[in-house]
């Protein structure tokens, strides 16, 4: 038909509508306008694009799909191809544009002109800023050695560029947020499996090999029971599929039990909330394990708790059992009851013996199930290793480890990345030092202040101990350089905020402002970030880092099966910011120009021609997992061989199978390949991946109930005869061979040493994590308006303040007045049980002061609610006392919001990994 002919259907005769009616009808609809053809062509060239990248608004690093209109990021969505978040983003992720386009962003390099802490800076060029840093680093290296410099890469995983440079520079001290996050929580999986984080099998979709050999996304939930102890995935993300997956698993019939002193968001979705006394998770788990061991009956289907097949893939169970049982006949001085009995646990946890028995029975009998313990609840106590070890054992002996619907160690299943791009190879360089008048040679990493100092087993570094090290310096206790003394003179902090989150705030401030003569003791403090947080106020140099929509790197976080995705350039760099890669290259060049013998052009400026080259190198080892488990990811290739290459090439058989190296090598994953595949590579799922060693990373390639991971530290002690102080504190002279037990600190209900504080300091303080209120994201305006979990609440006063914005030379008053009406802005509050509040004659909104037995204090407003057990107070970690003007409105409420780290005991660092005891706090309360 001729297009010009109008068919009968086109000639629908419309009667009764007049032109006037048409105008009426059309009003409100979106109309179109006609463009000049050149203009249309120009816009067409810049039509909206969807770019795939990875978030950093929180460490879950969800896969994102960002809409870009004419070069402007206009909306943030989840990347539907990324199974971690499967297309979802939380409110915080969606509001990321307020971070990227925040008026308080650090815009230019700055150099301090006032005293540290005053926040007075001048704008300088990149050349000047980098030159300043390079001069200082060169001088420090010459005078004290490169080991006097710490590179602390904070909370985001794209740290590789910085680590590479500083390892090459010669320091062994490249650290990150892990050591102040949840090291005790990770400990059991680490020493028993070589892993880190056990999570329930609820990441969906899973890419599953079908009987016909094809691959299909599986959305079914097989788990029947999840117990979350002190873990609140609904606000404390990192594992973004857990909130979604918990709800879906429940809808699919799973039972959810939450053990937590507070009615968390997760608890509010659960079938059962068990409000345990803070710091007694280990007690509960130990009683559950004892119950299961004593009550197991393999002949009774209702008591067949243990799946003894675990003995095939583990070693040392008898030793573990003997060590565990050795406590059963001992009496606890706190209550004169036998350790790990139901009555003993009931007395300590404040959960009835019947309830504990029911919980143990339910966990033992329900399969598949997962017992998950958390960051705040268990990891932030001095003895947080214990629930982690016992919890790992419980998942293993009940047959729930790496089975469909069970518990997965996600550290073991994620893709490899980094490889030589991380610069770890520089750590094995031989260096010489003169120790006690004698020249000694050893590898660079043997200069590490923790591993060869007071914390040999703190393999994530001891950031909480830095203030002491800054003030006192380092004396190595172990290894070839034993006796070597050096000060800490340079601190490069990138995307972290140690002053608020590192450990005790006052100690950090003291350490960073301590003077030696006219100079600061720590001679160089550099702050590299996008927002200006408190730690930046103590910096000598501030470098504006490109935001997460303006830089590249890789994310892998904690999936159930290997996957890796790209953080990619979405928009142009804003202001004068630079990417981590560019900063690495600039600083490398500046050091080379100053004659640094260790930083070589061949490793930096000549090696990588463009940013993509660096990340291609980091991708070369992906996924790097063995072809093991059921169903084997690639049944066509040999079992147990390491898998390398793109999913596509592996699937198509474009591989080389190397029998000698036991490798199946497909075409390498590259930035280009990822960009062509929605930013992500996903390899197939399998279960039972421990069979034949599989993904286990222990020395024996079995689950180790005897802690061989500690052997090398014991060897160091044997060689030096020097027992680390933290072990001495426990009365140990060596790391234990298997199960161990010790009490947490500042808990008068479980540790007799603290019983005397019970009456005068009647409240235990725990810290909750508020998803909105992480250190950097308080600058996001939208999030300040959303309340959360009774911890982050619109209890602000009516204030009119002088507006402060971060300008080219630091924070400055704009001259404008800003009125924030009462009750319109959420602030960190003190969550208190209403009965406690009534007893103290306190009402919601009253300002109170919390004081510890060692005299530290913080202030906050009471939120009197039923959602926390009596005798316990909860405050948001990093949610108060925020004194950086770079944070926007939150800053104006710094005096009425509590800073948990004002209360943290600087001496309470957990004995094996040196993690601060963020939840081991006792206080008294006074109305202000």
């Amino acid at each position, binding site marked *: 038909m001729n297009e010009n002919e109008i068919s009968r259907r*086109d000639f*629908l005769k*419309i009667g009764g509508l007049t032109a006037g009616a048409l105008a009426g009808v*059309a009003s409100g609809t*979106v109309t179109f*306008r006609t463009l000049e053809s050149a203009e249309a062509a120009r816009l067409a060239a810049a039509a*909206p694009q969807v770019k795939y990248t990875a978030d950093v608004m929180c460490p879950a690093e969800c896969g994102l799909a960002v809409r870009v209109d004419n070069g402007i990021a206009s909306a943030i969505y989840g990347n539907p191809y990324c199974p971690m978040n499967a297309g979802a983003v939380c409110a915080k992720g969606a509001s990321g544009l307020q971070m990227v386009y925040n008026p308080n962003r650090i815009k230019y390099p700055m150099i301090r002109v006032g005293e540290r802490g005053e926040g007075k800076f001048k704008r300088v060029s990149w050349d000047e800023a980098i030159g300043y840093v390079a001069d200082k680093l060169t001088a420090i290296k010459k005078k004290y050695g490169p080991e006097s410099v710490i590179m602390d890469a904070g909370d985001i995983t794209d740290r590789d560029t910085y680590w590479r440079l500083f390892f090459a520079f010669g320091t062994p001290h490249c650290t990150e947020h892990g050591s102040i996050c949840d090291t005790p929580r990770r400990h059991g999986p680490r020493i028993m499996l070589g892993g880190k984080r056990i999570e329930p099998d609820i990441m969906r979709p899973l890419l599953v090999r079908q009987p016909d050999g094809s691959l299909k996304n599986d959305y079914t939930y097989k788990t029947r029971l999840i117990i979350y102890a002190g873990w609140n995935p609904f606000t404390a993300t990192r594992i973004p599929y857990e909130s979604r997956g918990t709800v879906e698993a429940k809808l699919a019939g799973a039972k959810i039990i939450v053990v937590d002193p507070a009615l968390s968001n997760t608890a509010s979705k659960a079938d059962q909330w068990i409000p345990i006394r803070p710091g007694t998770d280990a007690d509960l788990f130990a009683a559950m394990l004892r119950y299961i061991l004593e009550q197991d009956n393999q002949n009774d289907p209702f008591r067949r708790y243990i799946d003894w097949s675990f003995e095939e893939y583990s070693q040392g169970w008898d030793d573990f059992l003997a060590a565990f049982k050795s406590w059963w006949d001992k009496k606890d001085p706190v209550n004169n009851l036998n350790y790990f009995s139901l009555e003993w646990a009931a007395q300590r946890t404040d959960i009835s013996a019947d309830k504990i028995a029911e919980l143990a029975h339910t966990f033992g009998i329900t399969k598949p199930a997962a017992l998950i313990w958390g960051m705040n609840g268990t990891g932030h106590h001095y003895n947080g290793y214990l629930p982690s070890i016992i919890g790992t054992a419980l998942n293993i002996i009940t047959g729930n480890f790496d089975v469909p619907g069970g518990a997965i160690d996600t550290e073991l299943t994620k893709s490899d990345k980094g490889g030589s791009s991380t610069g770890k190879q520089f750590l094995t360089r031989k260096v010489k030092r003169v120790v006690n008048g004698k020249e000694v040679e050893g590898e660079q990493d043997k200069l590490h202040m923790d591993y060869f100092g007071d914390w040999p087993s703190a393999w994530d570094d001891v950031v909480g101990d830095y203030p002491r090290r800054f003030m006192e310096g380092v004396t190595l206790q172990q290894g070839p350089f034993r006796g070597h003394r050096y000060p800490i003179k340079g601190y490069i902090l990138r995307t972290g905020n140690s002053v608020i989150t590192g450990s005790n705030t006052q100690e950090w401030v003291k350490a960073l402002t301590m003077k030696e003569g006219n100079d600061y003791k720590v001679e160089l403090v550099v702050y590299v970030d996008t927002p200006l947080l408190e730690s930046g106020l103590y910096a000598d140099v501030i470098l504006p880092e490109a935001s997460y929509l303006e830089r590249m790197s890789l994310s892998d976080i904690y999936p159930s099966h290997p996957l890796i995705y790209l953080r990619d350039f979405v928009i142009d760099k804003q202001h004068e910011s630079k990417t981590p890669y560019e900063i690495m290259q600039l600083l490398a060049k500046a050091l080379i120009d100053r004659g640094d013998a260790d930083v070589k052009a061949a490793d930096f400026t000549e090696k990588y021609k463009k940013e993509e080259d660096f990340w291609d190198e980091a991708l070369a080892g992906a996924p790097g997992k063995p072809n093991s488990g059921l169903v084997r990811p690639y049944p066509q290739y040999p079992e147990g061989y390491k898998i390398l290459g793109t999913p596509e090439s592996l699937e198509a058989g474009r591989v080389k199978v190397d029998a000698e190296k036991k490798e199946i090598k497909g075409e390498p994953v590259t930035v280009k390949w990822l960009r062509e595949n929605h930013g992500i590579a996903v390899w197939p799922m399998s279960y039972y991946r421990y069979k034949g060693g599989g993904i286990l990373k222990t020395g024996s390639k079995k689950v180790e109930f005897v802690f061989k991971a500690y052997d090398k530290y014991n060897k160091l002690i044997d060689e030096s005869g020097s027992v680390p102080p933290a072990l001495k504190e426990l009365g140990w002279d060596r790391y234990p061979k298997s199960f161990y037990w010790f009490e947490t600190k500042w808990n008068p209900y479980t540790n007799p040493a603290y019983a005397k504080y019970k009456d005068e300091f009647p409240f235990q303080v725990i810290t909750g994590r508020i998803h909105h209120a992480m250190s950097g994201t308080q600058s996001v305006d939208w999030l300040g308006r959303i309340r959360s979990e009774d911890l982050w609440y619109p209890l602000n006063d009516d204030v009119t303040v002088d507006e402060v914005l971060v300008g080219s030379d630091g924070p400055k008053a704009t001259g404008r007045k800003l009125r924030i009406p009462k009750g319109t802005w959420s602030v960190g509050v003190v969550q208190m049980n209403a009965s406690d509040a009534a007893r103290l004659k306190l009402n919601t909104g009253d300002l109170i002061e919390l004081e510890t037995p060692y005299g530290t204090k913080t202030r906050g407003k009471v939120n009197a609610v039923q959602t926390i057990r009596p005798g316990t107070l909860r405050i948001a970690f990093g949610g108060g006392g925020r004194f950086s003007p770079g944070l926007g409105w939150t800053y104006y409420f710094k005096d009425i919001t509590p800073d948990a780290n004002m209360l943290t005991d600087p001496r309470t660092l957990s004995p094996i990994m040196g993690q601060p005891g963020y939840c081991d706090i006792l206080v008294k309360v006074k109305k202000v």
Partner: protein
Amino acid sequence: MAMHESLQRRTLLYALLARLYTYPLDERLMEALAALRLDEAPAELEEALGQMQEVAASFTPAEIEVLRVEATRLFDGPGKPMAPPYASFYLHGRLMGPPAASAYRFYLAHSALPNSDGRVAPDHLALELGFLRYLAARAERAATKGRSDEVEESLRASRKFVEGHLLTWMSSLIKSDAFCDADFLNGDEKFTPT
């Protein structure tokens, strides 16, 4: 019937359809709908229109308010709406996917730009229908001036857009379980694709 007249009616019909998916539904729209007459229309179209008109004719302001609430629940949210009126949702699983970009490019290829400052996704049903109205109006103007090649070009674009874009997802929208008991919206959903 003269070409010009038929194009005018086409414009009118698309305007009405676009308006049906634009918040808020109001009395004027109800009146316009009630006044609409179709001659020689297929039976299913008559039926769908009849269903709407029957309800529309008797709406009180309070009932229109109820209808607005229902339309909000279906098309706008809060949260995920029951029947998201976006091509991307059905073809791509989420909003602002490639179908949105391709709709936008299509508009630009025909030198048209929505007057919405990017607030409304380019593949929103109301916008797509609005584009068809724009093309019809353009053809109508060209017909008045006797420029048959321009008429032809606009009609060709219209057909291409309907077949290559609108019809690729409309049926999924209609089939989504979300459609409620409200006879009016039910009729609307049959009326538009027919």
